[in-house]
């Protein structure tokens, strides 16, 4: 059992620099939670506060219901995997993995058993006598994970562990860590700036920005119900398109007017957009929801644009287009043969569209801050 609770956690550095502001996050037992956000958003600081490597300026941190704000890292029963692996260069792989257990005075036979078991799980049995500098990046990362596994901690912490690996290895290690989570059935907290890692690995994602938690939820919930424009743009690749449109109330019928095209929102969306009549809003649409209109019309209306760049990816085409004033990107099936300069018409899937207030950038459609709350 390992439940981690962050209650109103804040971190203020010298010079009144606020790195984390009022973070409220509950990480349930056996959950794989990913903190994601751009550089400097406070995700690593939050993780380091959980690890005990940073003092907590304000708020409470509880592990299994026990307040651990002032408990030293070694007594928190956590293990951490660092971005640059942080393997002790003067020790062999075996000693690196055994070090934490030796410090804790675990009997030698038990240490040996645990190290060999972890090495077997991670397929690094043959490397046990080597030094870190004799290993490749992927092998080092495995050893770093192994060092965490042998400890059998309540909570595993990962601080951008894959960012130093090449793209192919990253995908492989990603799968291995997911598999490891399933096998160990442990609580894991993972920090990354890569939203694809967050989407693929996490059972729950915490999106952060400028020290503030933006939204908490499952990857799909976040993808489909972003709370604000930042989350909508951060989750998903290519990112969601945002087009500025004016909301018009034409005799009770809500119309979105961009200037070069007019769209009709889905019925339930229209009711929520009504108070915005006469004002501009951000109309958000995912690239895969921009469907190429084969006919001349669509129930929700058409977006007419000019193709600027065509990127064929084999299974699909990423097509960059622009209205007279606003650019957008669409994911379309590979059989479409467009080239730069062609006129194109999209029929957006209006049920999937999102709307954001232009001033607050908050979602106009109702969305939960914390999916589980």
């Amino acid at each position, binding site marked *: 059992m390992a439940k981690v609770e962050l209650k109103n956690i804040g971190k203020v550095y010298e010079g009144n620099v606020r790195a984390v502001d009022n973070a409220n996050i509950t990480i349930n037992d056996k959950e794989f939670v990913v903190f994601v956000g751009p550089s400097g958003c406070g995700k690593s600081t939050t993780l380091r506060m959980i690890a*005990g490597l940073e003092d907590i300026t304000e708020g409470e941190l509880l592990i299994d219901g026990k307040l651990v704000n002032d408990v030293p890292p070694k007594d928190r029963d956590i293990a951490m995997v660092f971005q640059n692996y*942080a393997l002790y260069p003067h020790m062999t792989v075996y000693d690196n993995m055994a070090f934490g257990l030796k410090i804790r005075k675990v009997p030698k036979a038990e240490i040996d058993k645990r190290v060999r078991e972890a090495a077997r799980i991670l397929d690094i049995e043959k490397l046990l006598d080597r030094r870190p500098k004799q290993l490749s990046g992927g092998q080092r990362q495995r050893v770093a994970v192994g060092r965490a596994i042998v400890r059998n901690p309540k909570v595993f912490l990962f601080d951008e562990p894959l960012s130093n690996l090449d793209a192919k290895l990253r995908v492989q290690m990603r799968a291995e860590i997911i598999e490891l989570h399933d096998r160990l059935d442990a609580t894991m907290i993972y920090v990354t700036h890569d939203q694809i890692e967050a989407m693929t690995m996490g059972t729950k994602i915490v999106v952060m920005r400028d020290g503030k938690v933006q939204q908490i939820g499952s990857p799909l919930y976040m993808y489909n119900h972003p709370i604000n424009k930042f989350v909508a743009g951060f989750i998903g690749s290519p990112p969601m398109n945002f087009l500025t449109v004016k909301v018009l109330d034409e005799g009770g019928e809500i119309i979105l007017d961009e200037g070069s095209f007019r769209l009709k929102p889905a019925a339930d969306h229209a009711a929520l957009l009504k108070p915005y009549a006469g004002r501009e809003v951000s109309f958000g649409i995912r690239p895969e929801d921009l469907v190429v209109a084969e006919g001349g019309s669509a129930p929700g209306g058409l977006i007419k644009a000019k193709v600027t760049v065509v990127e064929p990816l084999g299974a699909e085409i990423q097509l960059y287009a622009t209205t007279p004033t606003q650019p957008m990107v669409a994911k379309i099936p590979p059989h479409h043969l467009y080239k730069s300069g062609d006129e194109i018409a999209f029929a957006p899937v209006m049920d999937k569209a999102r709307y954001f207030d232009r001033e607050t950038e908050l979602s106009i459609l109702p969305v939960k801050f914390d999916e589980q709350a």
Partner: protein
Amino acid sequence: MRRTKGFTAVATSILKWAVLVFFLLVALLPLCWLVLNSLKTNLELQTSPFAFPARPAFENYANAMAMANLPRLFLNSIIVAVGTVFLNLLVSSMAGFVLAREEWRGRDAVRTALEAGVLVPIIAFMVPYFTLVTKLGLYDKLYTLILVYAAINIPVSIFLITSFMRAIPKELEEAAIIDGCGFFQRYARVILPLSRSGLVTAGTFCFIYAWNEFVMAMLLTSSLSSRTIQLGIRFFTSQFITDYAGMFAAIVISMAPSVIGYVFLHNKIIAGLTAGAVKG
């Protein structure tokens, strides 16, 4: 045009080599002369100081060993040098750890003050050390030399060791914290082994200093029981006669440990001196 360019290059090269050879001669000639003369008889030395010996007089070495109680002095010097290195590295590495790895108010000021010790000429410490040592009743003790030499070398050692310790990634220490290491374990099991090159460099400097030191040894000791080899060499000179051949042999013997030490460790020493110069 090409010929002029070629000529300039050759001339530069000749000049460069001439300067290098000059400095090599300046450094090596006295050493060669010393070794050569240590193999001559006293008569040869006085009559033809720059000639080769007619027959290498290896007995000078045996005489030197017998005459000035050299084995005893050699042992004393080894005790002093090894003791100095051990004590100096223990203190400097601990200080280096706190100065390089821990955050505390006034740290930079303390570090600057300690490292500024490098700038003070050792001669300036003679009177204070003599007063302190005699007042504390430490005069003419072998361990006094260890204490004084270790102390004199602290600024240089701290300078070398902290620059090494600062280069160790922070994450390694954090990994040690997560692994359960306390303050001392972090120092002893992670930071100290990783500063090996810095310790070797500082230790070598310390050893060479302690081995070659003369002034402080003369100032702070008087009896044979606490006499070092460098001081012992002085006793080849008496009021009426000087056994130069024996003295030269003794000097060669006294130089051996520093030279051998440097030959074996020079790679580490150079690495230590250039630590942090480039990103590793």
